[in-house]
């Protein structure tokens, strides 16, 4: 019997702690698939965030480091200085990256750190039971926007790729989603491109992934996927925002 699809070796054989239908599992699996396919387990170092993906090191069979909430870009910078030829990536949620860690991501981007950022935008703080994130949609109800996020009090959802694009230090920025097998394939390509950017020493890459949090969106998982297509990607348009290969 020949395997058409098997658990990636770099994905540890265990059940995950994520809620049913959570996007984190998909993203971590994609990373594991690339690590397998490219044979880079021995030269890859990952950063786990504080957020629902905090236990990423329980699933990815590579050297990994925890970072305090919001600080993966700085911790990754410290690692990269020691191992400039390794592939260092930081995995971050939207609270982690776009709220408490705003200064760290902006300055890592501005320094043009040759690191890949995998930014899981699920429009909510999953880990702490569903409060507003900087990327929460207008009107979206969360534990801290019981009447729905409104622009006047809470501001507009932050478009991270577009914000970072202003900085000269960024090389590759793309927004993708997990809403369908097709989109998941594109997400994998985007992560590959991020790693490639780093391997070729082209500098800062960030892949923003629109990812479902069915629990705190109060939707069933398939509904959540539709919500990404129908609502979320209107605020956060999919596509390449910056690409060093295309700049003239």
């Amino acid at each position, binding site marked *: *019997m*020949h*395997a*058409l*699809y*098997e*658990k*990636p070796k770099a*994905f540890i054989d265990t*059940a*995950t702690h*994520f*809620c*049913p*239908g*959570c*996007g*984190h*599992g*998909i993203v971590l*699996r994609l990373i594991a698939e690339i690590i397998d396919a490219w044979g880079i387990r021995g030269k890859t170092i990952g950063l786990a965030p504080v957020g629902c993906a905090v236990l990423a090191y329980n699933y990815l069979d590579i050297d990994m480091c925890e970072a305090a909430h919001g600080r993966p870009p700085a911790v990754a910078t410290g690692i990269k200085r020691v191992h400039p030829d390794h592939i260092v990536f930081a995995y971050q949620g939207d609270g982690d990256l776009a709220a408490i860690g705003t200064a760290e991501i902006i300055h890592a981007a501005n320094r043009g750190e040759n690191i890949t950022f995998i930014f899981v935008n699920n429009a909510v703080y999953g880990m702490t039971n569903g409060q507003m994130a900087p990327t929460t949609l207008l009107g979206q109800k969360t534990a801290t926007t019981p009447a729905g996020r409104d622009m006047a009090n809470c501001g507009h959802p932050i478009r991270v790729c577009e914000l970072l694009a202003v900085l000269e230090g960024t090389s590759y920025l793309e927004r993708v989603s997990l809403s*369908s*097998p097709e989109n*998941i*394939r594109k997400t994998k390509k985007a992560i590959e491109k991020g790693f490639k950017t780093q391997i070729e020493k082209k500098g800062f890459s960030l892949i923003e992934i629109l990812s479902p949090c*069915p629990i705190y969106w109060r939707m*069933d*998982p*398939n509904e959540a*996927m539709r919500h990404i297509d129908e609502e979320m990607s209107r605020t956060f348009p999919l596509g390449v925002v910056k690409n060093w290969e295309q700049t003239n």
Partner: protein
Amino acid sequence: MAVIRIKENYCKGCLLCVPVCHNKSLVLSDSINDYGLHPVKFREDAECDGCKKCAIMCPDVAIEIYN
């Protein structure tokens, strides 16, 4: 014709794999796994051409495909 293996205790019954299968080969099972959740199962006599969409969609690495 491919064969699907679902890891019962990894599957959380999220059903993301169900609509993506053009053969409608996956359905929720009645059984309860160790975590008290209903996993999906491969529908009896269903078709599978190994397109992998279900596995690509699965957030819990619960599906493996063989032929």
